[in-house]
C-alpha cells in the first residue's frame, strides 16, 4: 500500500467570483507519507485542503481519492457531472478532517464526540461504540477526560479529542487544517506529538501548517503554495535545504523565529 497514490489532483481550479483561489493544481499524495502544504496566508492552501474534504466544491479539474472521483467526474462525453450525494459521502468516508477551530460539538462529551460517528454512521451498538471511542481517546492520551465537555477542556485537549473523533472512523487519509494555529504556544506541542506519533504509525496525512519545524522533521513531501499555484514541491529535505525560490526564502524568513533558522543554518 505504501507508496501508492492516495489522492490525485489534476488541473484543480477554484474561484470566488473574480478571485482565483486555486489555479491548475496538479498534486499527488502518496500512501503512508506526510505531505505538508505551506505558504503565505491567502495562498489557497486551506481551500485546497477543504476541496479534498469536499467542504468546498472545486470549479474545474478532478480530485481522485483512492482512484474514485470526488464530487465531480467526467462523463463519457467529457462533460463535468456532479456525483450523487451518496457517492460523495462514500468517497469522503476515506477521509478524516481536523480543523483549526477544533469544531467539537459543545453539547456532547469528549466521548460523545468520538462515538457520534460510530453510533450514527457505522451503527455500532452502544457498548462497542463506547469501547472503540475510549480506545481512540486513549490513543491521544485523554481517556481520563472522556466525560468532560469541550468547554471543560483546554484548546490542546480539544484538538486531540477532535483528532480522536476523526481517527475513530478509521479513515485512510487524515487532513489537518492548521491544527495548531489557534492554540497557545505551550499547547501546540501536545498536538504535534500526537500527529508525529500518527505519522510514525504510517498514517497518510495531508497537513496545512505554519509549523515549519514540523514540516521539516516529519513530512516526506512538502508543497509550497503561492498565489493560488504550487510554486515548489519536493522531498522535505530538498525544499528546505535549498530554498532557491525567492518567494519561499522570503516566506521562510518570516518564520525564522519558529524553528526555521535551525534548518536554514544547515
Amino acid at each position, binding site marked *: 500500500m505504501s507508496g501508492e497514490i492516495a489522492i490525485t489532483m489534476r488541473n484543480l481550479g477554484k474561484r470566488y467570483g473574480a478571485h482565483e483561489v486555486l489555479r491548475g493544481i496538479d498534486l499527488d499524495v502518496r500512501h503512508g507519507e506526510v505531505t505538508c502544504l505551506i505558504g503565505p496566508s491567502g495562498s489557497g492552501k486551506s481551500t485546497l485542503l477543504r476541496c479534498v*474534504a469536499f*467542504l468546498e466544491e472545486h470549479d474545474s479539474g478532478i480530485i481522485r481519492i483512492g482512484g474514485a472521483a470526488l464530487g465531480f467526474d467526467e462523463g463519457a462525453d467529457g462533460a463535468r457531472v456532479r456525483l450523487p450525494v451518496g457517492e460523495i*459521502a462514500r468517497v*469522503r*468516508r476515506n*477521509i*478524516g*478532517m481536523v*480543523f483549526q*477551530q477544533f*469544531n*467539537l*460539538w*459543545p*453539547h456532547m462529551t469528549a466521548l460523545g464526540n468520538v462515538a*457520534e*460517528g460510530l453510533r*450514527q*454512521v457505522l451503527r455500532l451498538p452502544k457498548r462497542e461504540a463506547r469501547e472503540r471511542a475510549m480506545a481512540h481517546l486513549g490513543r491521544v492520551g485523554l481517556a481520563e477526560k472522556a466525560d468532560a*465537555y*469541550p*468547554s*471543560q477542556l483546554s484548546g490542546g485537549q480539544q484538538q486531540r479529542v*477532535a483528532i480522536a*473523533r*476523526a481517527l475513530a*472512523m478509521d479513515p485512510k487519509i487524515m487532513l489537518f487544517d492548521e491544527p495548531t494555529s489557534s492554540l497557545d504556544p505551550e499547547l501546540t506541542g501536545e498536538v504535534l506529538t500526537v500527529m508525529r506519533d500518527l505519522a510514525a504509525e504510517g498514517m497518510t496525512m495531508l497537513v496545512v501548517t505554519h509549523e515549519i519545524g514540523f514540516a521539516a522533521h516529519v513530512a516526506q513531501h512538502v508543497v509550497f503554495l503561492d498565489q493560488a499555484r504550487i510554486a515548489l514541491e519536493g522531498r522535505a529535505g530538498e525544499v528546505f535545504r535549498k530554498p532557491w525560490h525567492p518567494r519561499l526564502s522570503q516566506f521562510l524568513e518570516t518564520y525564522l523565529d519558529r524553528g526555521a533558522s535551525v534548518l536554514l543554518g544547515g
Partner: protein
Amino acid sequence: MTDFDALWEALPEIVDGLGLTIFMWLAGSLLSPVLGLGVAWARRFGPGWVDRPLWAYVEVIRGTPFLVQMFLLYYGGPFIGLDLDPTTAGLLGLTVYGAAYFSEILRGGLIAVPKGHVEAALCVGLDRGQIIRRILLPEMTLLVLPASVNMFVVLLKETAVLSIITVPELTMAVTGFGSANFAFTQSALVLAICYWSLTEITGRVGRGLERRLDRFRIA
C-alpha cells in the same frame, strides 16, 4: 377587610381563571416555537419565494400591538367566516403572535451555530437528517435559551390582554369579581401579585437552567 372575605368566597372562580391563564400560556409557549421554527426553517432553507411573505408576516406581527391583532381576529374574523369562541381565538392569536417572535429568535440561533460544527459532522459522515437532529437543533436550542425564556414571560403577560376579548382567564376572573364587589384595588393587587410570582418563577427557572447548561457552551 370584608373585601378580602369576598375575595375568599370568589376563590374557586379565580383558581379557574388562573388555570386557564396557565393553560393558555403553556399551550402558546409550546405551539408558537413550533410554528416559529417552521417559519425560520422555511426562510433559511426553503424555496426563495417563501421568504417575502414570511418576512411580511413577521414584520407585521412584530410591528403591531397584540391587542389590535386580537381585535382584528376576534371582531373581524366572523366577517371572513372565522367565527371563533374567545378562548380558541385567544390561543390562535397567541400562537400566531408568539411564532413571529420565535421565528426571529430561532433564525438567529440557526445562523449562530458555527459552520465548522456542521462541516465536522459532514466529515465524520453524518447525513443531512442526522446533522439536523444531532447537531443543528440541539446547538440552536442552547443558543436561543435566554431569548426564549424572555419570550415565554412576554407570552404570559400577553395572556392578560385576552381578558379584553372576554377570555375567562385570570385577569377577567379577578376584575369581574372586582367590579361585582366594588373591590377594584384589592382585585388589581391580587392580580399583580399572581402575575409577578409567575414571571419571577419563570425567570428564576430560566436562569437556573442557563447555569446548568453553561458547561455546554464554549466561550
